[in-house]
């Protein structure tokens, strides 16, 4: 009798058990990963950037020392620019140059795929051809430039044998040049995919109408295709710029461990266990990245583009 009563009373509880399990609950495991491995870590990074530390431990505190240290001597320009500003400037330059080349190359690759390849099968096949390297190792793709650009590499062989230069060129590898080359090599895909996606949505009849009205190829490109690709261009740009902003691996390997970057500062501070200092740098990096994204997303609504 007793179990029956308990059961009955539970099932008669108003509303509590009448809530239907929602499909939305299926997102719980996914959400959990992002709460535990994304949200909490970022909050902790922010909190710990105000902590103190010594050689072997981090000490809860509320100090601005970590931030002050980053900008030490930055606002008196007597001795030229401070290390922090120089590093940021160098990283911004890498962003800008990489952005420029990935945009130009990515745009024309997408342009070719979207407008000049007519059969869907070929479109998919060529698109896949561009995507496959993305699924292979980045480190391998970086070191694969060594036989081409090294002191005794193919490019220098070519320069020497044709008499273009009399000595091997050192700037080809472990330099700013090779860093940009590797970035373009690795991340042009980030431009191709969203721009291609935008181009495939363009109604071909608009282009035909313009053509029939006497617009030439360049006018169509400039006045129709590029404006309609703006969302794709913005999304691609966000990807490329953020990935270069936080990079420390490509700049490390292709720069011969000689070129500074913000990511590298964080990496080095972590290896010396100066965790709160690294956290302060991470907060600034994240802030700048978000600022750039915020400015760029002002131009479009990302969600509509998927």
């Amino acid at each position, binding site marked *: 009798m007793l179990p029956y009563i308990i059961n009955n009373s539970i099932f008669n509880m108003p509303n509590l058990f009448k809530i239907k399990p*929602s*499909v*939305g*609950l*299926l*997102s719980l*495991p*996914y*959400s959990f*990963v*992002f709460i535990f*491995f*994304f*949200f*909490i*870590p*970022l909050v*902790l*990074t922010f909190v*710990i950037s105000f902590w103190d530390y010594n050689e072997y431990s981090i000490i809860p505190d509320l100090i601005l020392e970590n931030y002050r240290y980053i900008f030490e001597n930055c606002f008196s320009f007597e001795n030229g620019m401070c290390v922090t500003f120089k590093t940021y400037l160098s990283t911004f330059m890498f962003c800008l140059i990489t952005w420029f080349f990935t945009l130009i*190359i990515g745009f024309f*690759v997408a*342009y*070719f795929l979207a*407008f*000049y390849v007519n059969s869907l099968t070929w479109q998919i096949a060529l698109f*896949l051809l*561009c995507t496959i*390297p993305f*699924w*292979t*190792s980045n*480190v*391998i*793709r970086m*070191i*694969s430039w060594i*036989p081409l650009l*090294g002191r*005794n*590499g193919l490019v220098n062989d070519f320069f020497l044998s044709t008499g273009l230069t009399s000595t091997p060129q050192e700037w080809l590898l472990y330099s700013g040049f090779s860093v940009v080359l590797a970035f373009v*090599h690795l991340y042009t895909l980030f431009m191709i995919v969203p721009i291609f996606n935008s181009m495939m949505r363009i109604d071909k009849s608009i*282009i*035909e109408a313009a*053509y029939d009205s006497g617009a030439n190829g360049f006018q*169509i490109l400039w006045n129709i295709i590029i404006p309609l690709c703006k969302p794709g261009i913005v999304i691609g740009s*966000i990807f490329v710029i*953020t*990935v270069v902003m*936080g*990079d*420390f691996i490509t700049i490390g*390997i292709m720069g011969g*461990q000689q070129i500074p970057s913000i990511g590298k500062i964080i*990496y080095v501070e*972590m290896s010396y266990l100066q965790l709160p200092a690294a956290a302060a740098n*991470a907060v600034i*990096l*994240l802030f700048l990245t978000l600022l750039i994204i915020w400015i760029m997303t002002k131009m479009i609504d990302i*969600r509509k583009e998927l």
Partner: protein
Amino acid sequence: MFSKKNNTYYICVFFFSLFVLFLYGPTFTIILLSFQGPDGGLTFPLNGISTYWFEELWRGGSVVDIGSAFKRSIILGIIVMILTVVLSVAAGLAFRKKFWGSNVLFFTTVASLIVPSIVLSLGVALQFRLIDDLTKWIGSSLDISWVNDSFQTSLGMYSSGLGAQLTWTLPFGLLIMFAVFNRFDKSYEEAARDLGATPWKTFKEIVLPLIAPSIIGIALFGFTLSYDELARSSQVMGSGNTLPLELRGLTTTVTTPIIYALGTVTTFVSFTVIAISVGFYLFLKRKKGI
């Protein structure tokens, strides 16, 4: 306008071919160079042809324990792949309707793709460091012997490493699911429901077969992105390094073609996985007759 007979077309074809050469050329260079003889160096000319460097790699000569790093990477890749498929398909189903917090979750997903990897890696490392400190503090204050005697760290490949990689692979999975459900014909599902099928049965018999080819795509992203992941894992793998982490270390120390041999092997693994996925994808598409 886009006719195949004008000059612009040929310029575009030329440009595209150049781009493909740029993408693949360097990789094929090191594949070629990995088959050198024992006297080979890091650059051309090719000094004989042999499989010497692969044998050397197999013996583990002069290189750190590559075999176990390789094994670790494959196992972790498979775990990440399974979790990516299951979690993002489930979340994708949830996202078909608006639910509480769906907007926040969507923006978190996008944010996770563009947050600098080193920042995320640092955050997860900090979190696990605090967990360690907390565990040790609880251990000593409650006098739990196993914590005091043997607890080292909670940081590891299957805890922090796995989580950090999921923040990179899951967004791709969910975005693929978005693309799938944006083009999904709901009438089959409604028909099944009208005939009295339960939600689970509708999913298993109707939705799942229809989205199966895309699930192969998610699995491909899950495995390959984990197998090659470096930036996010760099601070959180604990004691056992994965293959990309070992590889990065080797770039500064190794000066023989053995590193190219290793590159050839990992590229071969990636290509094999991609080929299997594409084959499987085409098979499922054909079976469906679409």
